[in-house]
């Protein structure tokens, strides 16, 4: 079941979607973290970020909205506390990196260069912060520039995490490739809104939030398929994965790894069920190597 992305070998293709699994601590009693291909952490910034006011989450039909606003303790506490915690487990560490300016992204990437982590996932697609985030991910020139700036500084391979809130995801993928990205993650959340018709106001304090969960899966699978046909880079696929069947759709569309996100909230053992389900599928169809499934749908 192992897969290699940008020179890093993962024991299996299942990781967690950033922001839905903390740094693994809260799930360690539900999931043996050593069984995961990787843990992808919540976004980390150079200094602590307080995030948005509450309410920060809202349920929608088959999905949810979140506007956490990238609350995080900042890279120093993360490095001191979360990396050593994760290193106790036999799993790879992918650190999700956020910033408000190119400089802030660079600061985190440079600081992490000295740290024992396996890959960096650069979040240029968060719809819930006023500056940075998605703004970087909706313009191909910005995508290319920030990718090449970070690539210069990174010691670990970098994964650019793309926003689905674009006209042409393939264009963004090509821009990231041109900038030197080692891999791509997609998709981040789609910008959405929910209105409380009785209060006549937005349900989220931030008004808009990011839509995630099973509702968005068809959009995510389509984007993975499009990007897989547009660039040579390996893809981490995500967006609504709740079971092995979902994960296999992403793999067949072209993803080398898959990330479980919102499903963790509904089923804390979702990651392991996805993993075991992929194993069972491969057994059922006598598939020895998961690579034979990656991108098998033409």
């Amino acid at each position, binding site marked *: 079941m192992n897969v290699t992305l940008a020179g890093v070998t993962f024991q299996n293709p299942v990781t967690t979607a950033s922001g839905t699994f*903390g740094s693994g601590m*809260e*799930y360690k009693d539900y999931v043996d973290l050593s069984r995961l291909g990787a843990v992808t952490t919540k976004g980390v910034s150079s200094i*602590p970020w*307080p995030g948005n006011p*509450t309410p920060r*989450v809202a349920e929608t039909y088959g999905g949810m909205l979140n506007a956490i606003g990238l*609350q995080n303790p900042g890279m120093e506490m993360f490095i001191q506390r979360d990396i050593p915690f994760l290193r106790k487990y036999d799993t790879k560490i992918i650190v999700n990196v956020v910033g408000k300016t190119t400089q802030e992204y660079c600061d985190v990437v440079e600081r992490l260069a000295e740290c024992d982590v396996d890959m960096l996932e650069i979040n240029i697609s968060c719809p819930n912060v006023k500056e940075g985030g998605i703004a970087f991910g909706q313009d191909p020139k910005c995508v290319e520039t920030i990718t090449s700036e970070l690539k210069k500084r990174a010691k670990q391979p970098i994964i650019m995490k793309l926003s689905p809130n674009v006209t042409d995801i393939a264009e963004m993928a090509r821009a990231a490739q041109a900038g030197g990205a080692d891999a791509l993650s997609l998709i981040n959340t789609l910008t959405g809104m929910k209105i409380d018709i009785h209060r006549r106001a937005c349900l989220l304090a931030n008004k808009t939030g990011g839509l995630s969960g099973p509702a968005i899966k068809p959009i995510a699978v389509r984007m993975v398929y499009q990007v897989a046909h547009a660039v040579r880079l390996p893809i981490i696929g995500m967006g609504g994965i709740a079971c092995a069947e979902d994960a296999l759709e992403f793999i067949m569309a072209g993803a080398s790894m898959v990330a479980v996100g919102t499903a963790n909230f*509904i089923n804390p053992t979702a990651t392991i069920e996805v993993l075991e389900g992929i194993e069972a599928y491969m057994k059922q169809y006598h598939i020895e190597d998961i690579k034979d499934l990656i991108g098998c749908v033409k």
Partner: protein
Amino acid sequence: MSIAMKNKTIITEQTMLAEDIYSMWIKAEDIASTAKPGQFVSLYCQDGSRLLPRPISICEIDKVQGTVRLVYRTAGKGTKEFSKLKPGDTIEVMGPLGNGFTLEGKKALLIGGGIGIPPMLELAKNLHCEKQMVLGYRDTTFLEDEFTPFGKVYLATEDGSKGTKGNVLDAIRENNLEADIIFACGPTPMLRGIQAYALEKGIKCQLSLEERMACGIGACLGCVCKTKEVDHHSNVKNTRICLDGPVFYAEEVEL
């Protein structure tokens, strides 16, 4: 802390207490054996279009039967789904979650507002000191009789149909209630009033807060509350209600 797994449990009893207010007992031995007053559980809907868990406070614990009581209002589609379940039906539950109340004090005020009343019942059963219960309602009352074995019960209703006309603080003032500890659960405006009251009077005060949740276990940072000091975990002035709460001392949080 013990692990709160997500389990399918069987409903042993379901009754309507008042319009839109239901009382449900579930068989959940793991929860019953470890839960403390003030903790809550996450209830999951069967309908796949509703994904997020519904946090509901533990109202009573029967350690002998291995059952737990939940009293809830049918606020929306999820709780409406729960209210249609019958004894023998199953429901997925994760819990116990959160920290619960710290049992302390000599003369206590237990203040519940609306759907914040249920957790006060298990607290009343466990708290071994002098207890005064102040229960606030909009109009229809529920559960108030079940408090009488544990101390004197004061009611407040917004429409004045029972007890003091007004809110719980009005009832406290009207009855000149005194205490060295306050435990409160209810809507945020009520808690804000109690927080101010307690700080002003110098009474120790535990508040049980409410916020929209997604994970219920501290991972998503959905349910935070502003704090006066930098929080140990988040490294900002925000704390997670689901994991580090829902109960906080009045001086810790900003409402």
